[in-house]
């Protein structure tokens, strides 16, 4: 690995991202969708809070009339899902476009290691996704200024978002290495991410042991505890393994391209 080459590729990719309209549209859509959910959650919370003031029964019914439980936790769940929907649109071009236009032929004959290429591209997309996630910080900042939520779960929730986004990029980069068609790459990413999202739904249908395993495989199970403020090392390890696995597969895929 050569840090200079990684940063050169990272810079080039970033320039290319921000010189096209796609990134701005993806970020805009992301903020519109998450903003809509944020508005709904807070509006519901404030209405229920008002009603609960005059209705003790209702207050009892909503035992968890707590801004962390009713706004922040579901908000992270939603941001997570929308993140999974948007990242394939950002990753699809990373390698597929280079293959389509043929620029990969020059890139791979420059004196750079394949690792530098993969890392540079990965990090460039990570910067975009981090920007996206950072922009959603307006929601918790509003909550903190207007209400009194617990702050720790917000930090840990964001850690979960970053790990989730980083995992989705790794998988997306891999599917982008498999094809020269960006739509195919995005479709494969969607399918695989949804598989990893929904796999825990099969847990109740199988034996307890296998069920636990399926839940552990699920990509969104692991943000649950983080949005509650609990950082468990198994969750972190899950995401790190996920990221490394798909980066490794991307490298392999580039290598086999050379052999065919």
């Amino acid at each position, binding site marked *: 690995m050569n840090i200079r*080459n990684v940063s050169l590729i990272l810079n*080039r990719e970033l*320039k290319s991202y921000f010189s096209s309209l796609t990134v701005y549209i993806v970020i805009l859509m992301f903020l519109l969708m998450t903003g809509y959910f944020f508005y709904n959650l807070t509006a519901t919370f404030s209405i229920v809070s008002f009603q609960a003031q005059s209705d003790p029964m209702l207050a009892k019914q909503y035992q968890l009339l707590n801004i962390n439980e009713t706004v922040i936790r579901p908000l992270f769940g939603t941001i997570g899902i929308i993140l999974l929907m948007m990242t394939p649109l950002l990753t699809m071009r990373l390698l597929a476009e280079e293959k389509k*236009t*043929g*620029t990969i032929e020059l890139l791979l*004959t420059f004196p750079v290691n394949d690792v530098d290429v993969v890392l540079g591209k990965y990090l460039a997309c990570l910067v975009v996704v981090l920007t996206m996630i950072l922009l959603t910080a307006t929601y918790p900042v509003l909550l903190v200024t207007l209400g009194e939520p617990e702050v720790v779960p917000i930090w840990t929730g964001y850690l979960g978002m970053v790990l989730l986004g980083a995992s989705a990029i790794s998988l997306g980069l891999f599917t982008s290495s498999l094809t020269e068609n960006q739509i195919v790459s995005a479709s494969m990413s969607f399918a695989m991410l949804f598989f990893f999202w929904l796999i825990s739904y099969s847990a109740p249908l199988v034996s307890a042991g296998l069920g636990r395993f399926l839940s552990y495989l699920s990509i969104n199970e692991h943000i649950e505890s983080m949005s509650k403020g609990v950082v468990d090392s198994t969750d972190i390890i899950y995401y790190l393994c996920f990221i490394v696995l798909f980066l490794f597969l991307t490298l392999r895929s580039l290598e086999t391209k*050379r*052999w065919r």
Partner: protein
Amino acid sequence: MIEVENLTKEYGEFRAVDNISFSVEKGEILGFLGPNGAGKTTVMRILTCFFPPTKGKVMVAGYNCFEDSLNVRKRIGYLPQRVPLYEDMKVNDYLRFVAAIKGTPAKEVKRKAAKVMDDCGLSDVSNKLIRAISGGYRQRVGIAQALVNDPEVLILDEPTVGLDPKQIKEIRNLIKELAGKHTVILSTHILPEVSILCGRVIIINKGKVVAEDRPENLATESAQRMLLRINGNAQTIGQELSRVGGIKGVEREQASGEANGFIVVLEDEKQGRQGIQAMIERNKFELVEMRLLEVSLEDIFIKLVTKEEA
């Protein structure tokens, strides 16, 4: 500088390159000639370490393409056939990027990019997006990126395709200037280009080398032919001609549509010429036209390539 031994490349069942060996000396310009699909691009992609060969050994600048690919890649400049460039970059940004990624120290990146733009006549478009410049400029950006780090070896895959005649001339002059300092391999199917640029030429067809020599030697090697136009009885003239010494064969020339054209294949030019002259005087024929047919590289190329197929 470049050594290729028993190179074979297979794509699945299809053998694109079949046991090719050749070598290129330092400072030489080697022309790689062949019809479409002959395997030119495959050989170049192996030389540039884009993919490894199925069998065989390839050494560039003293390093093995397969085992020491980074060291090879540091020493080559490559212009692929389709000239794939990052369309969303400006010309100068792109060349700076390539200079940097090829290992130019950060301080010299700007200077090197500026120099190569100057050398390739790109200064006018340096601030334009690559997608916005014309085909001729694109091609030059492609050559510029190959040249930017002053590589020892240049590999150019059809460098003048799609250019207008003036641009072709400019690019050819540019390549000619590179001879001596750099070792150049260029592929083409434009034959005059080879005679103009290359010190040596390798003709390949269906993955095999069918000829290898200097362009002028290739031309003289094949038998010389002479066109004769003589007034008189065609049959008698034909008979008389075939009796002249120093001539291997006689055939009627019919392509031009004019009467009494003969093409004579000469074995010994001087003897044949004198013999024909004597024969005409003896028979009191009227000589209308007599000239040596220039053997072009085209004829040799077509002969070599079609011989393979027969």
